């Protein structure tokens, strides 16, 4: 007996019910279950599709698909980081390194001004608001996708979510940072200022890359990561 198209669709729903939300992970599991079910039918042709499916699922152990999801997540994290550094590195090579130096120098000169922490806080505040507006737009889009049960790939979801997480983290930490250093920046030694300016420049670039560059290149990156991406999206 062979698995029918409807049963394949049922298997996709089955993986979703067992907390596998991303299409790339689902696909591999669906193929595995389908192969196994066909094998089970060879030995026990009297079993129904559901019985064979449950028998096959049991082989994944008591945690079900959890181990698979976790491993996949780890693998994708590594890949995401690689992609991120690839873009961040660009900012330290010609010609972008000129912009990087300019950012660094402007932060440094702002820090030299008296009461620079207020200038910094103000700038951060404006950036945060600007970014939050963008985020809420993105969230709406994401919700629409979820409602439509579109096929969302793991890396695709990560590109959107890392953006959220990273932005939040950066801002929360920077606010803390400014609050913690009660001493005003302009009184600090120059090497401290260089260090702070450099870190701030790096954070700014990371923020820009994860928040704007990678999402813009998402389509390209997804095609590079998933050989099946075009095939699936055109279905």
């Amino acid at each position, binding site marked *: 007996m*062979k*698995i*029918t*198209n409807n049963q*394949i669709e049922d298997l996709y729903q089955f993986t979703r019910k067992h907390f596998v939300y991303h299409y790339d992970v689902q*696909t*591999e*599991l*669906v*193929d*595995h279950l*389908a*192969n*196994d079910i066909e*094998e089970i039918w060879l030995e026990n042709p009297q079993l129904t599709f559901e019985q064979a499916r449950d028998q096959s699922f049991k*082989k*994944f*152990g008591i*945690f079900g698909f959890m*181990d*698979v999801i*976790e*491993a*996949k997540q*780890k*693998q994708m994290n*590594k*890949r995401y980081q690689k992609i991120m550094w690839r873009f961040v590195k660009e900012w330290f090579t010609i010609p972008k390194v000129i912009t990087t130096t300019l950012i660094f120098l402007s932060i440094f000169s702002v820090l030299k001004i008296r009461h620079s922490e207020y200038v910094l806080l103000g700038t951060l505040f404006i950036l945060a608001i600007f970014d939050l507006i963008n985020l809420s737009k993105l969230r709406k889009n994401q919700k629409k996708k979820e409602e439509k049960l579109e096929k969302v790939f793991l890396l695709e979801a990560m590109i959107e979510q890392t953006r959220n997480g990273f932005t939040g983290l950066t801002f929360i930490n920077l606010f803390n940072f400014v609050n913690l250093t009660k001493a005003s920046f302009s009184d600090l030694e120059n090497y401290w200022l260089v260090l702070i300016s450099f870190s701030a420049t790096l954070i700014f670039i990371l923020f820009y890359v994860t928040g704007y560059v990678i999402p813009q290149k998402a389509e390209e990156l997804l095609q590079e990561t*998933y*050989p*099946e991406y075009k*095939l*699936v999206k055109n279905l």
Partner: protein
Amino acid sequence: MGNQKLFKGSLQTIILQLLASNEKMYGYEITQKVKELTKGELNITEGALYPALHKLEADGLLDVEVANVGNRLRKYYKLTENGSKETANKVSEMQEFLRTMQQLVNPKFSLE
């Protein structure tokens, strides 16, 4: 099966070695092949196989290819260049380990 624990640490080596002798394989095929080669003695569990495959892929040892087979998509794994090199290393490590274990478990007595 009592020996499952013993072989868990060798899973990556087994996968790499299988892929070295078969150009490309998919997950289910690997479980079946191991069963066949060991005459059912070893059983790779699904919950261990895919995490191992994903880890090898993340480490750049495996590459993937997707094909449409009938009514579903199938993900094939194959060795990358690095993967081939690593296979040789891992296999010789494994052989070394087996020899050492052999000496520990089954020491040859001599009169010297």
